[in-house]
């Protein structure tokens, strides 16, 4: 027999033998094993942590879960610290937010500083960290004073003087109640550059770093007029871009 014919015969036999129908019992066992694996896979899938979405956890999914958790944590801290009062652990978030507001192009620095000061005064009025809030209000007013327009008829001047009066009133009120801050000096009595108590509100005279990062410069001459000492927070707290 020629080798080619023999090879043909062998290939045909190979085909026929391999193509014979599988035996029933092993076939049933294979099917049962497949379904057992399918059920096990389904159970494993349902036990997977909800963050590891999809059929197969892997490095990319773990990275996605990590990034999601970090982003969520940042968002939560941002929301909680958005209006955190001075002296609170998350006040730095608010300070950063205020610094960004000041840095934005076209922002009115005087109005913003006044707004920040009014928000501090509102916090102190609600009794939220009164002493640090008053201190921050003082710093913001000093910063505002440095950038107020030279035109004394500007409405910002009115706001400023109202805020100075409110600051003094709150300070006196807190002093009257006695020290509330444990271990520290008298509440409402900032350690530095305390505004003068007079009918003519004068701004802080020493440059200080405000929460919003601006440095308050000494008050220019002519800032000590006696106008507008209403003793109220007439301009409304929280205005000027705060909040």
């Amino acid at each position, binding site marked *: 027999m020629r*080798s080619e014919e023999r090879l043909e015969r062998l290939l045909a036999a190979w085909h026929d033998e391999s193509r014979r129908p599988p035996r029933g019992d092993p*076939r049933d066992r294979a099917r049962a*094993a497949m379904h057992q694996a399918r059920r096990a896979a389904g159970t494993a899938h349902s036990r997977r942590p909800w963050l590891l979405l999809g059929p197969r956890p892997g490095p990319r999914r773990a990275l996605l879960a990590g990034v999601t958790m970090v982003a969520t944590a940042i968002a939560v801290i941002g929301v909680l610290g958005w209006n955190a009062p001075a002296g609170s652990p998350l006040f730095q978030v608010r300070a950063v937010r205020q610094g960004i507001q000041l840095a934005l192009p076209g922002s009115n620095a005087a109005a913003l500083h006044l707004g920040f000061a009014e928000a501090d005064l509102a916090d102190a009025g609600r009794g939220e960290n009164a002493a640090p809030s008053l201190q921050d209000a003082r710093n913001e007013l000093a910063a505002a004073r440095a950038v107020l327009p030279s035109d004394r008829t500007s409405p910002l001047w009115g706001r400023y003087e109202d805020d100075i009066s409110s600051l003094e009133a709150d300070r006196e009120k807190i002093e009257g109640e006695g020290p509330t801050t444990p271990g520290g000096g008298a509440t409402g009595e900032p350690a530095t550059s305390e505004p003068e108590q007079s009918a003519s509100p004068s701004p802080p005279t020493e440059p200080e770093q405000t929460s919003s990062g601006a440095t308050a410069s000494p008050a220019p001459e002519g800032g000590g007029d006696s106008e507008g000492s209403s003793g109220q927070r007439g301009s409304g707290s929280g205005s000027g871009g705060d909040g």
Partner: protein
Amino acid sequence: MQRLEVDESDRSGEFGEELNGLAETVQAARRGEAEAWDRLFERFHPDVHAYALARLGDWASAEDVTQEVFVAAVASIPRLRDHREPAVQAWFLHICRHKVLDHLRRSARQSRAPAPATNATADPQTVLETRLLAEELRAAMRDLTEEQRDILVRRFVLDQSLEAVARGTRRSVGAVKSMQHRALASLERLLSEASWG
């Protein structure tokens, strides 16, 4: 030589639209639906079993490997991207080929006597003769490369077209044709040497 001069025309439409719902079946299988797995099992079990038996020549081993293939498929089906029939068949055969190689490595360490084929409807004499011839071919195929053996199973046991083999093995049609030609030439030479020796 009629069988070796393979007529491609009778294979050209074998992967047509035979199973229109295969993509849906694969999707359902990915969701873990039992009926979908049953359909995949019914469709591809014969091919997987034939591949394993052609390579191993031992029914018990082929049945073990076939079972391992379907268990492994459950775990790896999320990675199956192409849901058309040729791709799904190629995926099952790819798993099967690896399971066969695993089995051969294991059996090289622990030899097991081949289980005799049982077929109540066939003539025992014919079964035995076929088995001996097939075993002779498998013995000659040991001198071929793994890739050549893989291609011969697909071409002469599973009756796949050159195009289907090319898709399943990720080679060009020309490369498959060339490998098949070399494999058959080697087998002819080996059988000739055996008959003279």
